[in-house]
């Protein structure tokens, strides 16, 4: 019984520790990312962020959905996110990655509003193709733009 409790406690602490969103732009172009998420008050993709602009060779990190309540680019339409209920209730769903032109890569979790994990756009940055990839590793979500 005690063992079970310890295992459960470990599981819970692990889940709480791992649910951040990490974004990396490794291209030589400015990239704009719009993030979708859900929480206790918003269904899958019910939350939509403002436009996060990432300079070439820059990264961004958000600890949880409520981080965007107070951190740029924020949520659209005065939306507010909550971490109530923990990571089984809230989560990152999808994103749109755009170069402001021809590239409009919609990536995300299976079953979300953008169920494709990786999108390649030819000629998206200085004649080069750009890959926008969504992955969940160890409970954290990563968007890699290469």
């Amino acid at each position, binding site marked *: 019984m005690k063992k079970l409790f310890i295992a459960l406690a470990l599981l819970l602490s692990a889940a709480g520790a791992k649910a951040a969103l990490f974004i990396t732009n490794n291209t030589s172009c400015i990239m704009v990312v719009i993030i979708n998420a859900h929480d206790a008050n918003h269904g899958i993709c019910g939350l939509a962020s403002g436009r996060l602009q990432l300079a070439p060779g820059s990264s961004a990190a958000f600890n949880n959905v409520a981080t965007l309540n107070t951190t740029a680019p924020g949520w659209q339409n005065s939306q507010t996110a909550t971490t109530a209920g923990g990571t089984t209730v809230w989560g990152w769903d999808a994103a749109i990655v755009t170069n402001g032109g021809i590239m409009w890569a919609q990536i995300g979790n299976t079953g979300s509003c953008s169920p494709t994990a990786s999108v390649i756009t030819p000629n998206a940055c200085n004649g080069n193709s750009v890959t926008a990839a969504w992955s969940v590793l160890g409970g*954290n979500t990563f968007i890699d733009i290469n």
Partner: protein
Amino acid sequence: MKKKLLAAALLSLLAPAAKAALFINNTSKCTVQVRVYAHNENGKACELESKIMTIPPMGTIALNNAGLVDTKPGWEKEMKISGDPKAAVWDALSFHNGSKTLKVGVSGGCATVTNGMIKDACGADLNVKWSVAGHNILIELYN
């Protein structure tokens, strides 16, 4: 089988070090103070030691490449990244609670462990974990 697994684990630890972003995620209930260590493309492990970075609870730091540390918070001894900042390699992170230090990082660097536990400045047990996640390096601090 075990040997193969170990080799694969070692490779996964070593391979993506260059051209990787470093993400630090503080999910603990206490403000943390850390330093990061890196080396230039042809340099020695941990030759660069950053100044202290302070991260509040639920705070994060995202560093696309080691060149970003040049300006904020800077390296000790006023060192700078030389050569291609994207080719510089992250080696380790150290956490200091006021009396003791825990350093985690890649094997072959200046850290002897990839994760460990130490008291945070608020007196609670703090896990400090270095891991490779895809193309990125992730350091998680959590109670």
